[in-house]
């Protein structure tokens, strides 16, 4: 039996703007099993970070359900919400602006423990802080330093320790390594993977970097302008990308090896505006396969075309006999 920890149904998040409704997240569906990692990939403005924030209720969903451990958390309030927040945590992209510059490492990590009355007594809390610092590989001598005294990698370790302080079940990692140098990036990625194995964590890994997401995820969902256009197990997605956008995205990754200058799936134009988008495939304007008679008639549906492999492209669906 699959042990589903999170199920997201018809999730929408619209923002009101001067020029109309901005469809940041537009009808997203997925399920996530306990202990697994879902990679949420896409380019800036595709709604991946908004999706993460709506799941955590840092932003209110416009509509849809967020079912965490069998319970819809999309409308809960007050103490129920506080309780839920212990189980769901987030690690932010920029370890500089997400840490309070006036607090020491120990104060930052202890804050959620005190706020949520997880432990009482100065001694018990300090012991827990040291234990968490050890878990994320921060030397004890940094306990009284301030974030600005530390480099990006160590700052990100503080962010991870703070998230772990609540003993969460699911962590949303929002571009956790994008601001770091490659050698430090690898240290943090290894740490996150170690923690997952040790603590049985479930991750939603939000990133624009496809090679990182491939390294890290069990399943990958590719987002484009607020919608999931393709979803599959990581290996399947990399070996048999079907949606023309996924193909373009994969072929655009520069590979650090000799003799890899290859043919690209070329995209022309830029991402269209997410404000009041027309009822058509949102990728149509940049798509090399676009057939106006089909693609501009309706919003394509996400259909399972191979085992566990979902695609929202009417042209490809037709080709594959759907």
């Amino acid at each position, binding site marked *: 039996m699959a042990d589903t920890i999170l199920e997201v149904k018809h999730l929408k998040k619209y923002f009101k703007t001067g020029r109309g409704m901005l469809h940041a997240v537009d009808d997203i569906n997925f399920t996530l099993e306990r202990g697994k990692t879902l990679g949420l990939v896409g380019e800036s403005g595709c709604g991946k970070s908004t999706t993460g924030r709506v799941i955590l209720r840092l932003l209110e969903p416009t509509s849809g359900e967020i079912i965490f451990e069998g319970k819809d958390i999309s409308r809960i309030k007050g103490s129920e919400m506080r309780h839920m927040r212990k189980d769901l945590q987030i690690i932010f992209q920029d370890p500089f602006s997400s840490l309070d510059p006036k607090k020491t490492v120990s104060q930052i990590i202890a804050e959620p423990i005190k706020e949520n009355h997880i432990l009482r007594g100065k001694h018990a809390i300090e012991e827990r802080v040291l234990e968490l610092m050890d878990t994320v590989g921060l030397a004890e001598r940094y306990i009284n330093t301030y974030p600005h005294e530390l480099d990006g990698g160590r700052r990100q370790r503080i962010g991870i320790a703070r998230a772990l302080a609540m003993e969460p079940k699911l962590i949303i990692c929002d571009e956790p390594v994008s601001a770091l140098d490659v050698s*430090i990036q690898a240290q943090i*990625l290894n740490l996150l993977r170690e923690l997952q194995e040790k603590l049985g964590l479930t991750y939603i890994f939000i990133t624009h970097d496809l090679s990182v997401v491939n390294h890290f995820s069990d399943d990958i969902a590719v987002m484009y302008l607020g919608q999931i256009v393709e979803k599959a197990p990581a290996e399947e997605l990399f070996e048999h990308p079907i949606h023309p956008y996924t193909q373009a995205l994969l072929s655009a990754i520069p590979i650090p090896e000799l003799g890899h200058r290859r043919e690209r799936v070329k995209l022309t134009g830029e991402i269209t505006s997410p404000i009041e988008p027309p009822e058509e495939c949102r990728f149509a304007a940049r798509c090399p396969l676009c057939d106006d008679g089909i693609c501009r008639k309706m919003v394509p549906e996400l259909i399972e075309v191979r085992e566990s492999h979902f695609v929202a492209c009417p042209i490809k669906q037709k080709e594959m006999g759907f």
Partner: protein
Amino acid sequence: MENKGKEEITDREILNIENLRVRFETEDGIVYAVNGVNLKLGYRKTLGLVGETGAGKTTTALAMLRLVPDPPGVVECDRLEIDGQDVRGMSINRLEDVRGKDISMIFQDPMTALNPVLTVGEQIAESIEIHEHLHKDEALKKAGDMLELVGIPRARLGEYPHQFSGGMKQRVVIAIALACNPKLLIADEPTTALDVTIQAQVLELMTELKEKYNTSMIMITHDLGIVAEVCDEVAVMYAGKIVEQGSLEEVFGETLHPYTEGLFNSLPNIKNRTAWLKPIHGLMPDPTDLPPGCAFAPRCNYATEECSASCPALKNMGGTHFVACSAYERDPDFLLERRRKNG
């Protein structure tokens, strides 16, 4: 006659730097940013200057344009020539002729590189007006040509930077940099702020234009994938020094320096997704307090005591391949793990 001229050109280098040292004298101490860099670049070649934050890549580039702020910056070098002209003692007037015309630079962040209160047309035309002594109308007409060249309709000449997306802004920056057909283009992380599909378009455009105008290029990047894609030569920097240098084939195919190997090992491998990454442990040394020996020794898996004692010089290892690592002096048959695996 024309042919003869061309041959002469290929004999010289577009860029020749010897023993470049840059330090910043701050209240908190002296920051040794660049510590003895030698670089030569042939005409029409593209050099990838690779390294992590703080390696001194951007400072090296700024020194070439004499743009290092002074004070606190102090620049010293034995030779700094661009297209055969000595830039070191050049008067400011003469320097302004060279900048933008012979050598120009694309900065990392297109969002801040453009002036928000001028139209993109005015910004492109500015450098054309100055360098080619054209009338404003003519310069604007040429600015329109440049805009079309980078794939933006001429009709958008009168628009302001905020009306463009990130990828478009970077195209405008490229149009400005290329407006006067510079002989040498320095691109400092030109696509880091862009999405991958847009990055692919911009890189393709740069390569195309570079070939069309015979421009030489220095591509500053931390992304080895980009280097593999656009560069002919590679120089890897660490703590203000070049630690490995050679052709793309030499540096990628026959890697010599442990730091270069560490960079490769830190990257997730697309083909082997379950493998654990092998990061370089530790951090880059503090540039105000560099270790006496090899700056990489504290992080190096192959380091011995000798490495922390003396600083290795860049040595030729055959072909155009140079490395600064004392392991090869101790044992001429020394091979990195990466090489042992690759055979």
